[in-house]
């Protein structure tokens, strides 16, 4: 029976944010193929919608790219109108990948060797 660890997503994956209008997309790319199934299981559309609840997404869509061990989240209406209208200093939402990367991920201890960096 394996023991489980909880780590921030940024130890298991990396990503980048892009924007078009009021829509943000955030990629999540596993640091190692062995971590990919955990991401698919735990990084659900609902989990991401909860992490961005304060921005009131009207829809969160997850696209899976298993051969890249990557997924792409599309978050609708989270940029306060987008680069032309938002009052945010970061009107593109460039920083938002790092908000997603703070989500906690549970993994069996034996997969810890595949994690990046430290907490």
């Amino acid at each position, binding site marked *: 029976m394996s023991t489980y660890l909880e780590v921030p997503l*940024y130890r298991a994956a*990396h*990503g*980048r944010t*892009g*924007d*078009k*209008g009021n*829509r943000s*997309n955030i*990629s999540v*790319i596993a*640091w190692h193929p062995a971590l990919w199934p955990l991401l698919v299981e735990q990084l659900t559309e609902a989990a991401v919608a909860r992490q961005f609840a*304060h*921005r*009131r997404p009207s829809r969160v869509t997850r*696209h899976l*790219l298993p*051969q*890249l061990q*990557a997924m*792409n989240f*599309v978050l609708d209406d989270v940029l*306060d109108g987008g*680069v*032309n*209208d*938002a*009052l*945010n*200093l*970061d009107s593109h939402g460039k*920083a*938002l990948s790092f*908000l997603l990367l703070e989500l906690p991920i549970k993994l069996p201890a034996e997969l810890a060797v595949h994690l*990046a*960096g*430290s907490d």
Partner: protein
Amino acid sequence: MNPEPILRIGCAAGFSGDRTDAALPVVRALIAAGGPAVLIFETLAERTLALAQLARRQDPDAGYEPLLDELLRPVLGLCLRSGVRIVSNFGAANPRGAALHIARLARELDLRAPRIAVVHGDDLSGPPQRALLDDALGGAMRGLKPVSANAYLGAEAIADALLAGAEIVVCGRVADPSLAVGPALAHFGWARDDWDRLARATMAGHLLECGAQVSGGYYADPGFKDIPGLAHLGYPIAEIDADGHCVITKPPGSGGHIDEHSVKEQLLYEVHDPAAYLTPDVVADIGSATVRQLGPDRVQLHGVRGHARTGTLKVNVCHENGWLAEGEISYAGPRAEARARLAGEVLRERLQGLGPLRIDLIGVASVFGDDAGRWLAARPEGDAHDVRLRVALNHDERAAAERLPREVTALYTCGPAGGGGVRTALRARLGTVSCLVPRESIAAGFEFITPADAGAAA
């Protein structure tokens, strides 16, 4: 005809404002590698064109990339002598003006006159196109004060210009990846409905279009993604084969880093549905794409598929969108956060009735939060010792917006103790509405700048 097996395309800019010393190492690497090569500059973000249109209103000769000279001067002679062709959207709102500038620059540098083509057809800001836009946008154009209206053109006019012998192709609005698809289409002579090959070249262009973002720029994260030489990043070069597959690399000895992870990040950048990445040229599908490291700073992209392009082209209309007012003031030391929060409350009361006010506590919470302040309200009050208060609002009327900078400045005497470093800004905003127009309603093409044109510009 027996085309070279590999076409190299180097990208020396990913936006207007990118480093201007990126091109020379890329051009040297292209020349050293030998074989056909093209240098592209992508300098046109969504709003850049509207800003260029505003500049042209002030000065009919302006309206193209303001750093055109700095971008081209170091490499123009080298490119002309070595047969490296140049393709860019740095024409912005005045491609012809940019072309004449390049002709002048060539003369100033004692170079022979280059064959410069100008791509036209994207600019829909004239009166004849108004009906087309009204039709496509329905009621959305009513009451707008448009600044610019441009269709996203594809690769065909670029390819045609290159096939006609252009050494430099100056565009306004074209889809970013088309800057790479055009040269590939011309070089390999693909059928214009060869969707798989067009899609592969499109994704090569997509990897290039943000400049150093694929080669370690905008990627570094200490302890997780350690990238050497960020101060001297090598900009990317795509080696495209006759089937459109590509290898992404960068100039030898340059800073930065290319591996499977940096390529995956850029591959998904600003993509929505990976099975349907829409451009004017093709619908690209990266659903079964793979990346593979072939060697140091060399990654191959494989498995991209294509589907028939859509029957429409995207049009962006930029319009005047009121004013953005911002103000900042810093607090430090004991109770700094409490004093910054108090200053924010004072401003909210003073600016009541002007519309929603955003309040940020830089150093506590300023970026992840929403404009309505739900994020900040959910944080417990802390004891940060170095906090910069920032407030911002939008208003249609300049005079009303100006009240914000005045009130922030007044905190010097009327606000909490120890506030310093007031900075304020008032800026005109631009809005964008988008629509789709039938492809056949846009007449894209190219023309050469004649020696007489170039002479007249002297």
